[in-house]
């Protein structure tokens, strides 16, 4: 068992999500920074889809009551075990009585904690991921609370390993987010598209797992901002009447009636989700062939991410 001493501002149980229910209005959920989540699971010897925690801005304080291994990845939150600094991106073997704490993120927004065996919460519609707005999955559809107890599936102690340097992304620099124009790019003026691709956009604090709200150069519409409602993809960049983009994420609404200027490649969703409020980013347009090439490259880069710890 894991005893939650302090939950952190928004810590949720996530696995790789529940695809297949968008036609009923239920989003896939799952970790926003999928690559970091997967590395955490591999470091503790889990399958990629085992349930772990997504911590937002600041992590929880957890008392360990069962021998287990954990790994912390994603946002750079200082990790301590019994008050002593401990490394992230590394297998940490813990014993009953240990207290783990994740502090405030120095870089990035979302950190992941994987536990050997994975968190044992009920599977809802085939997934343990939490969908907060829909009160579905995870721990009763909600974020962690003080005094919660989390159960782990039994698992052997994994070997101690660490993530290779290539798997750890520098979250301190403003990223370039790559997107394919469309499906409604024709509903924007040339200047509007140039604004999206030329300007810097700042992440706003209202951003959440549903969407990243951005502020920057106004994106002008050519013929109004409303369309007949259609489906919204992961990474769709919606532009309402105020000309400010909203990138839709894993807990997005399934359909909507605002024009969508571009779609961010799924390989850059995790990086977008690690941009802190106030931090800036830029967009770059790529074509579909390049997007698919980058996706293949991104997936291949995840095959060999661990090395023996020295």
């Amino acid at each position: 068992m894991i005893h939650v001493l302090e939950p952190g501002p928004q810590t949720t149980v996530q696995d790789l999500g529940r695809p297949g229910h968008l036609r009923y209005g239920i989003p896939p959920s799952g970790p926003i920074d999928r690559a970091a989540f997967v590395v955490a699971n591999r470091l503790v010897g889990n399958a990629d889809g085992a349930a772990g925690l997504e911590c937002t801005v600041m992590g929880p304080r957890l008392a360990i009551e069962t021998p287990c291994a954990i790994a912390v990845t994603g946002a750079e939150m200082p990790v301590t075990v019994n008050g002593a600094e401990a490394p992230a991106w590394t297998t940490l073997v813990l014993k009953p009585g240990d207290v783990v704490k994740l502090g405030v993120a120095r870089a990035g927004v979302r950190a992941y904690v994987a536990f050997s065996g994975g968190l044992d919460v009920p599977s809802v519609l085939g997934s343990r991921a939490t969908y907060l707005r829909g009160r579905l999955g995870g721990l009763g559809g909600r974020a962690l609370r003080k005094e919660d107890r989390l159960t782990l599936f039994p698992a052997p102690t994994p070997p101690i390993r660490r993530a290779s340097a290539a798997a750890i992304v520098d979250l301190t620099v403003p990223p370039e987010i790559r997107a394919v124009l469309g499906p409604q790019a024709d509903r924007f003026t040339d200047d509007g598209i140039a604004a999206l691709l030329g300007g810097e956009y700042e992440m706003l604090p209202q951003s959440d797992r549903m969407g990243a709200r951005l502020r920057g150069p106004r994106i002008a519409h050519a013929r109004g901002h409303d369309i007949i409602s259609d489906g919204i993809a992961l990474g769709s960049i919606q532009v309402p009447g105020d000309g400010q983009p909203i990138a839709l994420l894993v807990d997005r609404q399934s359909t909507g009636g605002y024009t969508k200027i571009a779609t961010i490649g799924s390989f850059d969703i995790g990086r977008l989700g690690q941009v802190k409020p106030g931090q800036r980013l830029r967009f770059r347009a790529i074509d579909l062939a390049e997007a698919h090439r980058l996706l293949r490259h991104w997936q291949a880069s995840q095959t060999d991410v661990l090395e023996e710890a020295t």
Partner: protein
Amino acid sequence: MAVNTRVRALEFLVQQKAVPGVIETVPTFRSLLVYYDPLVVGYDALCEALAELAAQAEHVSLPPPRVVELPCCYEDPELGIDLAPAAERLGLPPAELARVHAGAEYLVYFIGFTPGLPYMSGMPERIMLPRLETPRTKVPPGSVGIGGIQCCIYSVESPGGYWILGRTPLRLYDPDAAEPILLRPGDHVRFRAIDRREYDTIASAVAARTFTPVIG
């Protein structure tokens, strides 16, 4: 309506043929969003396969629709918040507006926006109204609203711009149920007008999980 039928027919064919690489689909009024894995099927090959199915979608006969009966309380202004003002705007007695609304059969074009929220057509022309000028910030789940040619039912508490004529005690989205979503694209919906007493009785049965919706 013809376009939406073709959208749902295309989705049906995509499911039937289990097109390789397709992950999931989202039907809307006049388009079908197809999620696919580009590492399994290329964009051009998928478009070709879908174009072929779209041509067949004209002629395919969809499985017979389910008919779902939704009890709805119109008479209590606490539930049918906008029944009286909407009726006044239409120049009808409130009871007549409720009767006309409940007398029609609605078709679920698609489910979207929030979990389980149906976008429905079938509104009688004489009760069509433009949406509210100022949307409400909070509409309770189960609220049955009209606006333009649409009728919708709020599935979770959310902001909304429809005129609320009544409320159903059924849950269109119930995260704790084995099947959280009540309605599906293509369903036919009939409203049955109930009084406040029956509303409360059904609401209690729904909460106790002893109520079975009437689905034909």
